């Protein structure tokens, strides 16, 4: 029952997310069972909830790939510079006028930005010696700060609505999601998830250390590269469409490890479910707590995710040592 709890909670949270909102839907069940009958439900609320599910799963899997590739419990898209790279890639692409936020083109550019930033972090952290966890985190924070600053500068200097605001890129928002945006993030989630599934046994071996993994027959650079590609696709798709939503990439994999153990293949599905749950709950709270206004979802995810993580660490502080 404990192992089914996140999936059951996700179903419940998704239903509540579809049921509640700024507007009470008349004849809710009839509207729900008749696709397209109610514009608010079918064109605004359900696409937003679906986007929350996909984005949450993507960010959570991105975190799992980051931690697996780095063999580092603190690694996650925002710490490695992945998120900031995705933001910068998207903003630069939008400013050329060739793509719009939420389009497949913007997602490709976001994923490329994510890949460039993450690769830069790895390259710089690896300059003087073997990849150390400490160097990776410090360099990642620095790269992230640089890319975030450039996004801020561009947002301040170029007054284009379609480039969105710095608060969007820093705190994220599902408020501007439309049905048309769902296709792109679905594609990146499927491709990223498939790569993650494929390399998950290798990530198990990588968690024993690079040398051990090598002696177990793993092509460590290849596995790490594929994990980075998956990470960039997943984070790039999510961030380029809804901005940066904090904490999901860090909290969801750890919560999943606590419940399901360290095996990556098991973790793929469960991490995605927990990430989707966190984002859907956070988005429901962000659009209902301060009605008729909305709270930034990034604030809500931090407020939910951080205490959960602290509680988990307090209860079972050797959760990461099981890797």
């Amino acid at each position: 029952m404990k192992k089914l709890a996140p999936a059951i909670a996700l179903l419940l949270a998704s239903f509540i997310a579809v049921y509640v909102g700024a507007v009470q839907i008349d004849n809710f069940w009839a509207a729900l069972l008749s696709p397209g009958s109610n514009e608010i439900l079918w064109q605004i609320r359900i696409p937003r909830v679906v986007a929350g599910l996909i984005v949450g799963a993507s960010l959570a899997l991105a975190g799992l790939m980051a931690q697996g590739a780095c063999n580092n419990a603190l690694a996650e898209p925002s710490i490695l510079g992945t998120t900031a790279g995705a933001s910068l890639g998207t903003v630069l692409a939008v400013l050329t006028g060739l793509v719009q936020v939420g389009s497949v083109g913007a997602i490709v550019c976001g994923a490329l930005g994510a890949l460039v930033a993450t690769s830069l972090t790895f390259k710089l952290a690896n300059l003087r010696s073997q990849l150390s966890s400490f160097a990776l985190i410090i360099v990642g924070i620095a790269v992230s700060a640089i890319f975030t600053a450039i996004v801020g500068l561009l947002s301040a200097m170029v007054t284009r609505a379609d480039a969105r605001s710095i608060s969007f890129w820093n705190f994220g928002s599902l408020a501007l999601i439309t049905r048309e945006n769902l296709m792109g993030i679905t594609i990146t989630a499927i491709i990223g998830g498939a790569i993650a599934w494929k390399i998950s046994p290798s990530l198990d071996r990588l968690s024993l250390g690079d040398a051990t993994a090598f002696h177990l027959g793993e092509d460590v650079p290849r596995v790490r590269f594929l994990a980075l590609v998956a990470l960039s696709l997943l984070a790039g798709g999510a961030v380029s469409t809804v901005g940066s939503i904090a904490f999901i990439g860090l909290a969801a994999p750890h919560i999943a490890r606590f419940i399901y153990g360290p095996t990556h293949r098991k973790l793929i599905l469960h991490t995605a479910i927990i990430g989707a749950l966190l984002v859907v709950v956070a988005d429901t709270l962000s659009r209902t707590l301060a009605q008729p206004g909305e709270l930034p979802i990034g604030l809500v995810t931090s407020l939910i995710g951080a205490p959960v993580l602290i509680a988990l660490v307090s209860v079972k502080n050797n959760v990461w040592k099981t890797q």
Partner: protein
Amino acid sequence: MKRLGVIALVIVLTGCANSQNSQSNTISQSDVSAISLDSTTPFSVSRVVVLANGVAEIMTSLNARSILVGRDISSTEKTLESIPVVTSGHQVLPEKVIALKPDLVIIDASTGPKSAIDQIRSAGIKVVQTPESWTLVDIAIKVSAVAEAIGAPAQGVLLNAAIAGAIQSSQLSSKPRIAFLYLRGTSSIYLIGGAGSGADSLISAIGGVDVGAVSLPRPFNTMTAESLAALDPEVIIVMTKGLQSVGGVSGLLKLPGVAQTRAGKSQAIIDVDDSLLLSFGPRTPSLVVALSQKVSAVLK
């Protein structure tokens, strides 16, 4: 008793002057005219700097432009272009004000910084604070206060009478449901006007129903897709630069919730010059007429 010259009320209601913009649904500054007095009267001051939004416009309508020697950046009318600006952004530059040797500076509650006003006062210059105007009702109070400050209260009475007379004739019979959206796409600011936004009084004046004022709690409320779709306005009014900031009408229609409204479906979007829409001064009667005509046109 002031000696009043021949009074000519120049009321040019050019709502019909939309021939240039019949397709764009834009109301620009050139589409409206201010109500002005042609009378002459002596004033109690001779050099006035205005640092309050809309006061320079009122001074012009009171036929007191000759004593206006400095203005704030928000006074954008063409007739005021030759008057020096003494603000940087919306910050008052005291050195520039004092250098103009005014005998009166007019401010309002929004004028700042306070230290700059204190410096102007310290230089021995009289500073008068006039009320801000956020509704049609406020116009008369503000006009009276400005007229009083420059020593021409009778001019204020005349101007108020002209403005009140002009506002009364623009009621639409269909009572269309209208929403005012305040947009700043570059900052991701999307707000729906409610009771007290200012736009609500304009919408009432043309006989429309401000759907935001009816059901939303604050003068400006966060625009969520669902709340806008539920309000379902027939017409949406925005500021011109605000509309540009979201990428024009096509960009506005891409914001979730807009396309689901009747206004979105029929593209009944009217944009009004930013400095004109909520100016609540002598141009407002002309604006009300122009707005009434635009709303009728987009509903056809």
